[in-house]
């Protein structure tokens, strides 16, 4: 009903947010783990190529790997130490990938030595894109898409607005919230860089209305000329999805299979821009990030600034378990992945560690009923797909029909349909399988 008056997108769901545990906790730096694991592929695109060899000493902030082409980003050393080895290591994504293992020098000062101020206002758009690539920046919201790629607008498109995504609609996570509260100036700097790079005259920050303190904080530093504004949107999942945000704030729809730049929009996450605004003027690299560690299975929930490559086990030991065999989710509960092992490292795309107890896990439906056509999923799907019918098709392995007639590939796996399904059908999993089968 309220959607008539408020700026939002149709459909969506309202999972309980569970943010109160951590949203008031300032970001605290986590100590360095004795050993850091740095996979060469922490981003969407080609893996970077290593610049170091085993036994080499590196200084915090020094590049460890360089980008392999345009669809790739470099990797910087999160701590001063010695390269122990380069070998296949387990990562959160599952398969083992090549990673640099760094032994941290216990007593080192851990100051960032690679610091070279640069004059941003004199750089061209091309130079800016290259500079962004040099920071190793990727989307910190979870997708890990190289930021500089997003910033290079295709020639046929003209971007007029930069949308800054401060929604953080995933339950439990509060990293973006804390960043907005604590680094409003960095954020503004980042927004200006983004605007210059994509050639937009306007920027809008979209924040869900459960983070009004952050709105207030940002509003205080906004420029007078209205080029950058802030807009509250209703708290609803998946408000933070790129497509949903453009619909909600600008009432524009990203074409199916296309990029936001086709409708004159570039969307960046607040944490990404804040980090960019902090790093780029000094041409530093991305070496640490804020991670929310929370969930019923954690003793000291909070927002931690964690050096990339820190093993999750180390983070968990610091934050404390409540005990009991549960489930470990990297990211939010709606779209995050379960970690197969505690030995995987924190990478650029991990914004949260969520520990569920066994009790929580058992609350989920364990028997799958047939679809009763209740239409809950249809009412939930933000893309207006028909998950009910897609699910039935998937059940009968009619994958081609799903793609040809029912727009399977527009699904971005937000999980809303599975969340509301009373029959407990793992719809998103079905769709992932269907997509995977079709892609092969």
């Amino acid at each position: 009903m309220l959607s008539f008056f408020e700026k939002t997108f149709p459909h969506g769901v309202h999972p309980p947010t569970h943010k109160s545990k951590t949203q008031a906790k300032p970001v605290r730096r986590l100590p360095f783990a004795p050993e850091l694991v740095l996979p060469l592929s922490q981003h969407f695109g080609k893996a970077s190529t290593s610049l170091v060899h085993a036994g080499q000493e590196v200084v915090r902030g020094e590049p460890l790997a360089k980008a392999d082409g345009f669809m790739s980003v470099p990797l910087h050393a999160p701590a001063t130490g010695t390269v122990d080895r380069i070998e296949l290591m387990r990562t959160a994504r599952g398969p083992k990938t090549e990673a640099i293992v760094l032994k941290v020098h216990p007593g080192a000062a851990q100051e960032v030595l690679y610091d070279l101020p640069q004059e941003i206002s004199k750089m061209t758009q091309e130079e800016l894109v290259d500079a962004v690539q040099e920071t190793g920046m990727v989307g910190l919201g979870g997708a890990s898409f190289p930021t500089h790629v997003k910033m290079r607008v295709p020639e046929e498109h003209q971007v007029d607005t930069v949308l800054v995504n401060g929604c953080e609609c995933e339950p439990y996570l509060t990293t973006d919230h804390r960043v907005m509260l604590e680094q409003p100036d960095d954020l503004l700097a980042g927004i200006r860089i983004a605007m210059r790079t994509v050639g937009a005259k306007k920027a809008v920050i979209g924040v869900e209305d459960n983070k009004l303190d952050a709105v207030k904080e940002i509003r205080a530093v906004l420029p007078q000329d209205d080029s950058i504004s802030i807009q509250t949107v209703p708290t609803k999942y998946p408000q933070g999805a790129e497509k949903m945000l453009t619909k909600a704030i600008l009432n524009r729809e990203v074409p199916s299979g296309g990029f936001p730049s086709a409708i004159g929009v570039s969307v960046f996450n607040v944490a990404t821009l804040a980090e960019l605004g902090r790093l780029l003027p000094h041409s530093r690299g991305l070496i640490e990030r804020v991670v929310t560690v929370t969930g019923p299975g954690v003793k000291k929930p909070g927002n931690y600034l964690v050096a990339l490559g820190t093993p999750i086990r180390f983070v968990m030991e610091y934050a404390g378990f409540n005990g009991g065999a549960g489930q470990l989710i990297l990211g939010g509960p709606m779209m995050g992945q379960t970690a197969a092992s505690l030995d995987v490292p924190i990478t650029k795309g991990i914004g949260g560690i969520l520990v569920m107890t066994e009790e929580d896990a058992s609350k989920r439906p364990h028997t799958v009923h047939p679809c009763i056509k209740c239409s809950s999923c249809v009412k939930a799907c933000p893309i207006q797909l028909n998950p009910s019918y897609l699910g039935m098709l998937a059940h009968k392995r009619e994958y081609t029909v799903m793609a040809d007639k029912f727009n399977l590939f527009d699904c971005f796996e937000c999980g809303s349909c599975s969340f509301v399904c009373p029959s407990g059908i793992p719809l998103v999993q079905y769709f992932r399988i269907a997509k995977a089968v079709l892609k092969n």
Partner: protein
Amino acid sequence: METVEVRTSPHVHGAPSVATIMRNVVYALLPICIFATYQFGLSAVALIIVTTLACIFTESFFNRISGTSDSLGDFSAVITGVLLALTLPPGFPLWMAAVAGFIAIALGKKLFGGLGFNVFNPALVGRAFVQAAFPVAITTWTPSLTAARFTEFIPSTLTFPFAVPAAVDQWNAQVAVDAFSGATPLALSKFENIPTDTFLLLFGTTAGSAGETSALLILLCGLYLIFRNMLDWRIPAAVLLGAFLTEEAFHLFDSARFPDPWFMLFSGGLMLGAMFMASDMVGSPVTPVGVWIFGLLIGFLTIIIRLFGGLNEGIMYAILLGNAASPLIDAATQPRVYGVTEAKIFGKKVD
């Protein structure tokens, strides 16, 4: 903590399970059953018990012979049984009620593979079958609130299996409070042009099927489910709206011949059908527009059958026809997908 469970997202679930929803539907039907008992006494109780048991036994019988897992836990068979009883005349012979229960589950549900795969509302399949099989018994009504209702059965209730039920004409005349006892408000209106007070219809002291008489009670029970978010409010709303608008049009055209729309809304099984049977999820469309079309169609057909058909009640057939049409409605009303400009009808691209 060492044994972490690997699962795909989403990792939280926010909806009541099928069994929970179904259980709540049963709760919502209970007051209606109690009212039916208050109104029609022993016969109504026996009727509800017999249809429910018939449904449960049929369900477990087919589960056993087809080797599928136990599906009684989802309560859907119980709902079918109770709903079926509520749509039958209170004096309906018990053996016929058992037949209806068997047909409802066997033909209406198990034939298609069980809950979720059925295309018609099982309770209505059962009722439509006995309506066609035993047309006399199912149109034999008895008066409500008779004095001895808690001590004796309606004579036709205890008919010997496969035998013709005893005539209730004499019994009706004996227990009748007024001249029209035993005739349903719709029949009175249609065949004799005698209106019934809307107040009576709301509180349900009229004759009729066991559970359809009190429109107000049904409305309240339906609202309970709607507020618990276990019933799609759009379907009952659309059915009632469709019926109201159709009847209003006829009423404006000739108010002497066609009764006023409020009468139509509160009489007969419209309220029960709209709240608990049209809204049955399995047989209704899933698309946002489709749901409204479905409801309006049912409302429209109900009134057309009531006014011009051979029967004085049409909600049952209207819902069955709606069920039959719902795949078509779904196919024709697929919503426009975000970011897709061309519309698709019946899965085909349309410019």
